[in-house]
């Protein structure tokens, strides 16, 4: 029995450290991009176009992941692209989480008319097709980083509201809530001090998932050229450009795709890992 517990714990640990490690690396790369990136991500060199990655014949060691069809360094563009990806993930994820979780808590704990209003809103909101909704919003708001963030928050808060409402409802029925009421705690304070800590593990998991989703949504929007202007490299626009030259230069598509994949995977694993590691009830 003790052995099995150790096993589970170790796996949770590996999951946490691997995902946290990748995201830390990425965050550092994003913050120090101008220092780390070997080349200017926008510098074109038509004579050095479509150089293959370092292990292939004809590669240039100065461009370890090769160059695209305009001769821009793929590695430098991925590093600079991390700035947009992580920035959107952090800001959009946190804002979505704050708004959605607060509304979910209020609906689930207070029930009655606040729940009626919030839940009907969520129902109507979720009937819109999300990607279309995002494109529509961007079309109205205009392109740019803040538009993407607003679009993600406006579309995805329902994801939090729905799950947190259900959780708050089941927690609200527990006797520790009645007990806090008998002790004379105010209702809003019960929501924040008693219920929130019990919903927090779910919030953390949803938050990291949402960050992953934000990265994907940003990539989708830049893939269809609705993100930010083309002089700021993003993973989505790299994938879009790579798609055109997939038969001549596969690396232009594949490397940003792998980075995107690892990042989204890391975000989802980070949430689970954090929950397993820091929740006193599971520990």
């Amino acid at each position, binding site marked *: 029995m003790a052995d099995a517990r150790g096993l589970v714990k170790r796996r949770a640990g590996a999951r946490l450290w691997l995902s946290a490690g990748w995201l830390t690396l990425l965050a550092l790369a994003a913050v120090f991009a101008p220092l780390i990136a070997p080349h200017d991500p926008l510098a074109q060199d038509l004579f050095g176009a479509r150089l293959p990655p370092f292990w292939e014949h004809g590669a240039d060691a100065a461009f370890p992941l090769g160059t695209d069809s305009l001769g821009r360094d793929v590695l430098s563009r991925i590093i600079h692209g991390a700035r947009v990806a992580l920035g959107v993930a952090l800001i959009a994820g946190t804002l979505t989480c704050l708004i959605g979780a607060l509304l979910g808590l209020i609906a689930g704990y207070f029930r009655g008319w606040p729940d009626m209003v919030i839940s009907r809103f969520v129902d109507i909101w979720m009937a819109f097709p999300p990607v279309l909704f995002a494109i529509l919003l961007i079309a109205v708001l205009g392109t740019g980083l803040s538009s993407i963030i607003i679009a993600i928050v406006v579309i995805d808060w329902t994801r939090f509201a729905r799950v947190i409402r259900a959780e708050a409802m089941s927690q609200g029925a527990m*006797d520790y809530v*009645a*007990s806090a009421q*008998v*002790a*004379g705690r105010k209702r809003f304070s019960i929501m924040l001090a008693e219920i929130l800590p019990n919903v927090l593990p779910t919030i953390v998991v949803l938050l990291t998932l949402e960050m992953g989703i934000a990265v994907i949504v940003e990539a989708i929007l830049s893939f269809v050229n609705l993100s930010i202007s083309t002089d700021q490299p993003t993973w989505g626009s790299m994938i879009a450009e790579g798609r055109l030259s997939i038969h001549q230069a596969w690396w232009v598509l594949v490397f940003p795709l792998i980075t995107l994949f690892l990042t989204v995977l890391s975000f989802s694993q980070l949430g689970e890992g954090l929950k397993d590691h820091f929740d006193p*009830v599971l520990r």
Partner: protein
Amino acid sequence: MSDTPIYDIENLRLSFPDMAHKPLLGPAPRVEILKGISLRIPRGDVVGIVGGSGSGKSTLGRAMVRLIEPDSGAIRFEGQDITHLGEDALRPLRRRFQMIFQDPMSSLNPRRTVGAIIAGPLKLQGFDRVSGRVDQALDHVGLPRVFRKRYPHELSGGQRQRVGIARAIATEPDFILADEIVSGLDVSSQAQVLNLLEQLVRELGLTLAFISHDLSVIRRLCRHTVVLHRGEVVEYSETQALFDAPQAAYTRELLDAIPLPDLDQVWV
């Protein structure tokens, strides 16, 4: 002062909306749970409240500590009418009536340590030297002080219920409502918790209302017993008298349902 009862309940009525039979438009019909309950609990008494499921005993208890608001009638706590008081007006009174819950796993916040759980009501009621009082409460219920750092899931069922009791006595209340507090425990923990309760009533001069469906537990602990049936008091008398000569037909039915320890003559 001494002849003012701790609780004076008069013709208490309480109903809930019946959402299962709510018409599409218009309000849901109401189901009456308490149908005019009158009850006086003198200071220092230990009163058992007994009844089958659906008899309204837990609802009565929750109305007494004002977790829910009755429709009509009156609840007077030490002479003061608390029937329709709002939360803000109730707050200063809450120190004086506390509650112990049935399921300690549900009534102890799983993400707080035992120390924080017991300190909760003390801090809310503005007590001084909270830490010392937490230790004192733990001493009273016979838990080691190191338990302050533990989480509820690290304790056994009996220990958890002791934490629930410690939280209730920490604010030095005059009255404690115990709602089925031993029904989730195994027999030996039950006996220990009951002993502890008896001892605390003696030492702290508490007035206790003990809700249970188990007459043998009531018989052991309570001086008086109220029998509830479908939201009405069918009998209220001294426990001994109730067991010796039950007046109401429903009480006799309940008593007949207790397994008796005497031998069947056929076996001898």
